[in-house]
């Protein structure tokens, strides 16, 4: 094995990455755009509860001065009241799920409309009915959870970083190596003393370096904009993301071990990436999902990466406390690297 040859190929791949301005820019812009989009959607909007249509109302802002709606219902938190001039206008919005519940405010007998299949409508109906019942005082013991609230964006941030890492690793290695094989770049390299092991090592190390570089730049940029909540150690988090980066890169190498069809590789990469996108808790928690879905998610490396990252970021866990997740990532890395190296072909 020659370290000089590995270094040469490492540098060549990095030149490619940094000089391909479109791909380079996208690697940084993509996570920023997603984080910014979610911050705007879920962070700056005042209301995230249920929408109740009220008619008749001259304006969209409902005038409750001559309403028959119970005050307790009107004062319920997390309800947004939207005024409609008549029943038809309200029903139109209800049918399109733009509101969850529709109520007439000028009748003495309570009269309301809801969609049969809407769980939100069911909940608002209960709140509406409870509005007519006198509140019981001293029912149960209410305690507020102490500490800083973890915003959705704080929970989402590691998911976006992990997802960006996954796409960059799978496509940046898997797709690129197959393209090189198809257009003859690998064949040209095979004509030199470079060995498959040296080439794969250079590819893996280069991608790992680029992943961590991108991660740090995106982290700093996003943190300046959104001030993320970080409880644990930055070093521990770097270790976890490094293991995750190696793991995802090794999967990319395994997928790129053979084949010259970019279409097939793209399909295979999507087949692998999309389950991780939805089942590894990038966007939402799997709490409440069917048991088999949660079992399946345990086989996805991104699940372990994100779980460990969130434990460190949001809960302040140490490396020892995310040992299981780290071991899972190391295990997948080793299996993929060994298989990828054994199956690798320069031109088949």
């Amino acid at each position, binding site marked *: 094995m020659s370290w*000089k*040859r590995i270094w*040469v*190929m490492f*540098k*060549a791949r990095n*030149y*490619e990455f940094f*000089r*391909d301005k479109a791909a380079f820019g996208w690697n940084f812009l993509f996570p920023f755009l997603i984080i910014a989009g979610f911050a705007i959607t879920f962070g700056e909007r005042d209301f995230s509860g249920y929408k109740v249509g009220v008619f008749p109302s001259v304006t969209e802002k409902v005038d409750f001065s001559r309403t028959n709606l119970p005050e307790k219902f009107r004062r319920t938190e997390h309800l947004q009241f939207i005024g409609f001039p008549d029943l038809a206008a309200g029903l139109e919005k209800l049918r399109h799920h733009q509101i969850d519940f529709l109520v007439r405010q000028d009748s003495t007998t309570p009269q309301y409309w809801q969609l049969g299949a809407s769980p939100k409508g069911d909940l608002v109906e209960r709140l509406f009915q409870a509005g007519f019942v006198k509140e019981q005082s001293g029912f149960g013991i209410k305690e507020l959870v102490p500490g800083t609230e973890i915003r959705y964006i704080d929970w989402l941030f590691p998911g976006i970083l992990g997802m960006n890492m996954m796409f960059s690793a799978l496509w940046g290695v898997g797709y690129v190596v197959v393209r090189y094989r198809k*257009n*003859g*770049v690998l*064949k*040209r*390299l*095979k*004509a*030199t*003393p*470079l060995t498959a092991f040296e080439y794969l090592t250079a590819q893996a190390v280069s991608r790992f370096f680029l992943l961590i570089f991108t991660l740090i730049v995106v982290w700093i940029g996003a943190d300046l904009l959104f001030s993320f909540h970080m409880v644990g150690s930055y070093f521990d988090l770097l270790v976890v993301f490094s293991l995750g980066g190696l793991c995802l890169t090794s999967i990319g190498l395994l997928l790129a071990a053979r084949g010259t069809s970019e279409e097939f590789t793209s399909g295979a990469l999507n087949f692998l990436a999309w389950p991780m996108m939805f089942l590894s808790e990038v966007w939402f928690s799997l709490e409440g999902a069917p048991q088999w879905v949660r079992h399946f998610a345990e086989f996805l490396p991104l699940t372990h990466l994100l779980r460990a990252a969130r434990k460190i970021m949001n809960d302040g866990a140490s490396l020892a406390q995310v040992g299981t997740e780290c071991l899972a990532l190391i295990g997948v890395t080793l299996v993929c690297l060994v298989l990828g190296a054994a199956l690798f072909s*320069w*031109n088949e």
Partner: protein
Amino acid sequence: MSIPMLEVRNLVKRYREVEAVAGISFAIRPGICFGLLGPNGAGKTTALEVIEGIIPPTSGEILFSGAPRTASFREEVGIQFQHTTLLDFLTVRDTLVTFRNLYRDAESLDYLVELCSLQEILGNMNNKISGGQSQRLMLALALLNKPKLVFLDEPSTGLDPQARHHLWEIVRSIREQGKTIVLTTHAMDEAEYLCDEIAIMDHGRIIAQGSPVDLVHRHCGGTIISLPRENVTIPLAGIPLPLREVNGLLEITVERIDLGLETLLGLKIDLSEMTVHSPDLEDVFIHLTGRKLRE
């Protein structure tokens, strides 16, 4: 007798039902330019890539300097492929430096840049150079490691006449330095200009081998008179001269042109649109296969 630089014995390459290389054998003396000449699909590139170690043989033996190829083979040979590309976002200079660093012992970059006329494109990205410039860069890469043996697979394919002749001159200068060259081509003028020895391939087999002059003498002595087939109205058996029909033309080989023309005029054959030429490798190929090289 010196040990051949390269010796191939009963080389076979089979892809399922297709036998791309059907048991070829040859030996190449050090310092010569050896050509594998044949039409597209003859098996030249497959044979070359098996010899280069890019694809494995089905059977057969390949000896380099009298011994089987070892791991050091790649340090000692230079390869230019027919179809290959380089990393898009590296400059020509980066590419030369990158490949140079893959070898233990490498040629001076200044020398190669001058030899292959790359001075003006050193700062260009690989995806921004012309076909001719790309071929010269590929040739420079093949020479980076001071190879004893250089493989060139159809080096002038796709080049305009000027670029083609420029490339030929470079190949000749390499040959003059004492390097052994193996090249494939389907252009007989290229083979005649560059090669000391030629093996003509067809359907995976070598059908003739020798120097260009020998091959022409052996298979197509004399002069060739070509006539449109429709000029001849008598039965062909009535012409007492060796002849063949190729793509609507009748080619008649004669020892002496004056006697040949006399015979044809005596048979009242219309000689309008007649051409006369000395035989070349194209005629050798036609003589051996009944087809033209580019068919």
